[in-house]
């Protein structure tokens, strides 16, 4: 039944295995991940293509906003303090949208981690994606695992020097392209590219490229799994996020043990033999240098490449896939209880398989319903609520705003005819990239009139102001009330602004101060 001749046995040692874990001061042992192939590897290629595609292409998308705003679809315009995202334009005071998105990202991470484990780490994290990319280069130049180990231990030669130099050169090119793409989010991409190439871009552009080139090269090429294990705080939060119903990459001891390199002999001798043939394929492909058969570990980023490796071996052996699989701790424990007869003995293949070789009834198998539990719905609810609140806020937000600052020193001025004058700094925010004519009017405050500095027009209760596109217009306004109309030392009134073309308007309740009577 077990034809092990097709299974390549690998001399692989899990360098970060708990059993052999080095103290922190020991030099790092290099990991040489073998190329994996299978469903999850395919999925990871897809995710890599999508994420890198988004990263590199986004700044080059155009979006027409008319003549008064940039036409770059996604642009963080730090100089003018504007953020553009397709049809959305955000002013600095609307930064709560970004805060809201960050909250959604946070709750989203909780949701994903509590259901499907460290999917972010395994598939979408930039560290994972770039390490994968760098490994592709390494494999193309130096060959797969065994060739790389051989090269590593070989003495320096012209060939080794050439291979190493070309690998690092390509890494640096990728790193520079990574840093180079970043800056295009902050300025008009085509123009900036021209400037960068001709050496006329701002120094900050080159500094940014240099810094990000350095971090990409060091993190993705040199440090790799150490970033995840030692630098990243996220793995430390995992323990609080995962529970017994979260999917994790699991070695299923209940069908794998006792593992044997010589299953045929063992069976012939009447000894039990599990599905694991100890071929070390799972260890060889692991980019984190661990042995998944030790159980769930801090280092595991759940990239699932060991599942691919093991599934390939199981296929060759004619066994069911899933010796290593995504499984919940609850299922695993239930199956372990079956395999060990309630924990009373060692794992016994006879307890999980019928004499015919099929799995016995009563084994827990995963289905999607298991990850939908109360916790999932709470995260999903919170995540959607924040999202809906943001969308609602976005759809109903004001694009014409009014802020008024009352002069405090002096609060009021008595004029020669006895009338009282108050000064205000009125700020009109025209938040669309089009010029508008704004009508400013006084509401209330009997008999009062205003005059505006710089506008040569007799005092009136209404002024027409030309507001520049996407700009703040600051007006110095003097409001004057005749002496006989002044009712009390502090009166409320409204400044009202209205776009003469659309119906958009805004109001601000201001205070008008006058001296106490008899003073």
């Amino acid at each position, binding site marked *: 039944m077990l034809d092990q001749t097709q299974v390549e046995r690998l001399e692989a040692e899990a360098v970060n295995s708990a059993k052999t874990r080095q*103290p*922190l*001061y*020991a*030099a790092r042992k290099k990991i040489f991940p073998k190329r994996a192939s299978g469903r999850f590897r395919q999925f990871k290629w897809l995710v890599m293509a999508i994420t890198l595609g988004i990263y590199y292409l986004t700044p080059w998308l155009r979006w027409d906003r008319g003549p008064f705003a940039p036409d770059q679809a996604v642009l963080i315009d730090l100089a003018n303090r504007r953020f553009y995202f397709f049809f959305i334009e955000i002013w600095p005071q609307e930064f709560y949208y970004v805060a809201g998105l960050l909250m959604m990202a946070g709750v989203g991470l909780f949701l994903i981690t509590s259901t499907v484990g460290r999917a972010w780490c395994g598939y979408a994290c930039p560290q994972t994606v770039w390490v994968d990319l760098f490994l592709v280069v390494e494999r193309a130049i130096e060959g797969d695992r065994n060739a790389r180990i051989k090269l590593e231990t070989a003495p320096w030669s012209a060939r080794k020097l050439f291979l190493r130099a070309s690998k690092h050169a390509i890494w640096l090119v990728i790193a520079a392209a990574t840093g180079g793409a970043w800056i295009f989010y902050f300025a008009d991409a085509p123009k900036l590219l021209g400037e960068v190439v001709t050496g006329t871009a701002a120094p900050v552009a080159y500094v940014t490229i240099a810094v990000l080139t350095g971090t990409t090269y060091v993190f993705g090429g040199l440090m790799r799994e150490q970033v995840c294990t030692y630098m990243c705080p996220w793995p430390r939060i995992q323990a609080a996020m995962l529970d017994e119903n979260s999917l994790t990459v699991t070695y299923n001891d209940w069908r794998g043990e006792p593992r044997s390199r010589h299953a045929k002999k063992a069976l012939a001798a009447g000894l039990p033999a599990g599905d694991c043939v100890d071929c070390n394929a799972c260890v060889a492909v692991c980019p984190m240098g661990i042995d998944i058969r030790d159980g769930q570990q801090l280092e595991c980023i759940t990239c699932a490449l060991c599942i691919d490796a093991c599934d390939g071996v199981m296929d060759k052996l004619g066994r069911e896939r899933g010796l290593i699989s995504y499984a919940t701790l609850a299922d695993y424990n239930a199956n372990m209880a079956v395999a060990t007869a309630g924990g009373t003995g060692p794992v016994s293949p006879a307890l999980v398989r019928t004499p015919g070789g099929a799995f016995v009834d009563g084994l827990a198998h995963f289905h999607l319903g298991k990850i939908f539990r109360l916790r999932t719905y709470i995260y999903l609810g919170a995540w959607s609520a924040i999202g809906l609140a943001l969308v609602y806020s976005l759809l109903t937000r004001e694009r014409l705003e009014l802020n008024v600052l009352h*002069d*405090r*020193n*002096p609060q009021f*001025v*008595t*004029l*020669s*005819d*006895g009338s009282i*004058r108050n*000064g205000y700094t009125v700020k009109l925010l025209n938040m669309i990239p089009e010029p508008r004519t704004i009508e400013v009017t006084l509401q209330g405050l009997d008999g009062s009139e205003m005059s505006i*500095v*710089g506008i040569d027009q007799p005092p009136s209760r209404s002024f027409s102001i030309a507001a520049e596109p996407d700009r703040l217009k600051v007006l*110095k306004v*003097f409001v004057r009330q005749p*002496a006989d109309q002044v009712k009390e030392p502090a009166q409320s009134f409204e400044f009202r602004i209205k776009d003469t073309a659309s119906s958009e308007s805004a109001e601000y309740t201001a205070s008008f101060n006058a001296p106490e009577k008899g003073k």
Partner: protein
Amino acid sequence: MSNEHIDEISGVATTGHEWDGIRELNNPLPRWWVITFYITIAWAIAYTIAYPAWPMLSSATKGVLGFSSRNDVKNEMAAAETAKAKYVAAIQSKTVSEIAADDALREFAVAAGGAAFKVNCVQCHGSGAQGSTDFPNLNDDDWLWGGKAEQIQQTITHGIRFAADADTRQSEMPAFVDVLKPEQIAQVSAYVASLSGPVLDKSLIEPGAKVFADNCVACHGENAKGNRELGAPDLTDAIWLHGSGEAAIALQVHTPKNGVMPAWVGRLGETTVKELAVYVHSLGGGE
């Protein structure tokens, strides 16, 4: 190492040092830590070479980069001056009215004048230019010497009753203590007060009007509207430099106060005086 001794309990090599049977474990520092430590040492040495660092007898090493925080400030100030140069040149070549009519220039002059005001003028006129008794409020529309930008510029340039400046604005309210009898002072005070508000004893108004016609019209005018040529205040309005009401008026007739404002052009220069004039003119009362 042949003589390496491994501690049995921890499995860690010892340094070979032993005190009363206690052996020192050899736990070297983490490699990354040691490397970082060496980098900081190298950085520190490079830093002391590049920047001023080592104290000598009378000064310190200059550093090969030639950095000096004093120079930095000097450069920043020079850069600021260069940035301002365009506006300053325009302000120098234009009249204050022209400056006030130009949006960009006015904005610059108001900001610069406001800063100069905070340093030089607030002592008398107050931080909001609101003045106080004896010190004029510059926000209102009542001007002793004229509220046009040029007139304000003239006042700031040469001052008022400032002996050291030949072109200063000159006038003096004479003391009537020896000219008018006490009851006449009371009468004229009542009359003047009645021009802008109620008085207690209306019977004083008529004789007061006669006293006014005999003594005051030369400067304050027949209708008591004042005369800006002489800095004589309008007595019919609601604004009183030396206090309102009969008592304050009587005091000012009896032994007047004649305020002095220094000439500022010598101290601040013409550009700053122009900026100040534009600033004061912009406060809301400018004509």
